[in-house]
């Protein structure tokens, strides 16, 4: 169920994106040659063990990098416009207006000294979405209702909110300027399972209703199955497999994806975090040669250790592997 826009241009197109963090131990290549597309109204999951670079990808898309972050290559095309060469002022107008974010630590994404509604009004004000404060507040009230919050709560402070309420408020905040793309970085990890589930469903509902593109970053395979159309699997800064969610979950091509699945009893059953794989993800400063997964891979051969694998394709699904599982149609050098 890949969707493209009417004019056949994807909503968001990421091409060969690479990012390094400069550290005392040397450059950390946290994102390497990542490419993917996102259609309008489509939802793309990004999964992988902790530290594989998911948040870094999200931050590149928003161009919200820490001081030591350096973009070394790539394009981020939103509706055909490349965000990376933009000036600070251009990107500032772009952020939140076209692409908004629900943060990983949503608990702390609200400033403790301002009323919650005010913090949403602030974003509306910065982008000139409404004329007056009164109109902006009406908009906030609508957004609050949309995410299941009583609009009267907008004059409360963050510390008066429960975890779930804060999470909803942060989602309302992300919707404030009608963005085309919304990035959710593990939006529900800090919440209890029942609240997680409800908020997830609402997030999905809102995304469908507003026909936004969504990038959904998570450890939780259950959530991936529930809310994403396509899913990308990341390992050591690289996208190693990408395909329709149903295909990837039922017939993974990359041994890493398969290992993630097997450490996870039942897709539709109880929820469990990824990352209970034997061995450890590699140190990014000192990556293994060839396929970075080879020290942990049961199928590793000599060429795996020597050279980075090409993309093996199967329909709209691909994996970067010399020996893909579940039958690839063809293999092409990438």
């Amino acid at each position, binding site marked *: 169920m890949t969707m493209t826009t009417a004019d056949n241009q994807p909503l968001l197109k990421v091409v060969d994106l690479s990012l390094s963090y400069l550290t005392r131990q040397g450059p950390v290549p946290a994102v390497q040659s990542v490419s993917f597309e996102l259609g309008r109204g489509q939802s793309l999951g990004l999964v992988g063990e902790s530290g594989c670079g998911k948040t870094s990808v999200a931050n590149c898309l*928003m161009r*919200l990098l820490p001081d030591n972050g350096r973009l070394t290559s790539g394009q981020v095309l939103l509706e055909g416009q490349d965000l990376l060469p933009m000036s*600070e002022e251009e990107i*500032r*107008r*772009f*952020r*939140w*207006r076209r692409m*908004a*974010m629900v*943060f990983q*630590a949503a608990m*702390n*994404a*609200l*400033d*403790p*000294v301002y009323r919650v509604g005010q913090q949403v009004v*602030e*974003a509306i*004000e*910065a*982008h000139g979405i409404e*004329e*007056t*404060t*009164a109109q*902006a507040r009406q908009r906030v009230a609508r957004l609050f209702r949309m995410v299941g919050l009583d609009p009267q709560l907008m004059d409360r*402070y963050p*510390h*008066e909110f429960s975890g779930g309420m804060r999470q909803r408020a942060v989602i309302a*905040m992300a919707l404030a300027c009608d963005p085309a793309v919304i990035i959710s970085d593990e939006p529900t990890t800090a919440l209890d399972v029942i609240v997680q589930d409800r908020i997830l469903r609402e997030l999905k509902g809102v995304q469908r209703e507003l026909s936004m593109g969504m990038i959904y970053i998570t450890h939780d395979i259950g959530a991936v199955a529930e809310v994403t159309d396509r899913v990308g699997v990341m390992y050591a800064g690289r996208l190693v497999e990408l395909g329709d969610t149903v295909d990837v979950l039922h017939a993974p091509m990359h041994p890493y994806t398969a290992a993630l699945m097997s450490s996870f009893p039942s897709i539709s059953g109880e929820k469990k975090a990824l990352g209970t794989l034997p061995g450890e993800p590699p140190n990014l400063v000192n990556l293994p040669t060839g396929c970075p997964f080879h020290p942990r891979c049961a199928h590793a051969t000599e060429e795996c250790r020597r050279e980075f694998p090409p993309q093996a394709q199967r329909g709209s699904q691909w994996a970067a592997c010399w020996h893909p599982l579940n039958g690839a149609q063809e293999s092409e050098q990438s």
Partner: protein
Amino acid sequence: MTNYLLRRSGQMVLTLFLIVTLAFFLVQAQPGDYAAFYSLNPDIPAEAREQIKASFGLDKPLWQQYLIHMKNTLTGNFGVSFGHYPRPVIEVLAERLPRTIVLFLSATAVSFYLGFFLGKAIAWRRGGVLEYAATISGATLFTAFTPAFALMMIWIFAFKLGWLPVGKFLDPLIWRGAEVTANHVFSYMLATAAAFVVFAFLTLLVARKSGRFATGRLPFLIIAAGAVAIPVAWAFTGIGYLALDILRHMILPIATLTLISFAGTMLLTRNSMLETMREDYVMAARAKGLPEKVVRDRHAARNALLPVITSLVYSLIFAIDGSVIIEGVFSWPGTGMTLLQAVRSEDLPLVMGAMVFIGLFSLLAHVIVDVLYVYLDPRIRYQ
């Protein structure tokens, strides 16, 4: 909130009680007999002496004297100053206290603003020339020996450059033939300053409540207009030149106090800023596409302010200490210098009165900072 204020008031009363007690026993512990100082002072006529003796219970045992002292303090009766005989202590202090408060509030306000402003700037743009310059000069001034530094300021700005008066409250040559007293002019000045603060505050309040986003510069223009109107209005009163003279005398001590104390606020703000800049809500503010200045001021700096305000209590105490020395060096006739002189001339009632007043003043400052903090941090405000 009410609960909190009640509790704070209770603590304040207790502290005040301790201060008054301490002042009494410190003076008692002076070498020489307290009662004898009164009865042997040649400035005091014999009949007044008896009266004083009775009203202070000087012929009674110590514990009774203490109780009488307590009662007198509560009713504002600190007795008669030896040095300023026959003026009552309370009258001397009522004249001098405002001068100290003005000196000290302006210096605290200026140094706090300067320190906060610089600290915020150097945290935001780390590693710049400004960071080195501000940190080194701030730390040097902070550790400088206060009297030596004050004398150096006088030497540079009063003697070498001749820009400002050497010290004191006013220049007698300018005041000769003036129809009003310095105290009158000074209280008008105080009233003007207070009115201006209220005016500026109300303007900002109305601007904020008016509900348009783009109020922009207008409130600041209105406030600036008010600031311009003040000297113009004073020029018409005919005593403007006298006020100007007092103002000129205030500049050097305020500048000195500011320079020795801004670094504390600056370094603290910098550290606090570096913490808040890492917070998710600052990242969120940037992600929302807010302008950098708004991210810095409304989010990072606004939160960094909280621990700095807490420390304001300590810098206030530092400034009260400093004001005794500064007033001495600049011959500024405020409470600090009064205390210094009273100690030197063994004017014991005045010493006791000044100590109690300075204590009361620091206590009030403390409470004001507390209330300010509660106002600034909604997490405490709504508990």
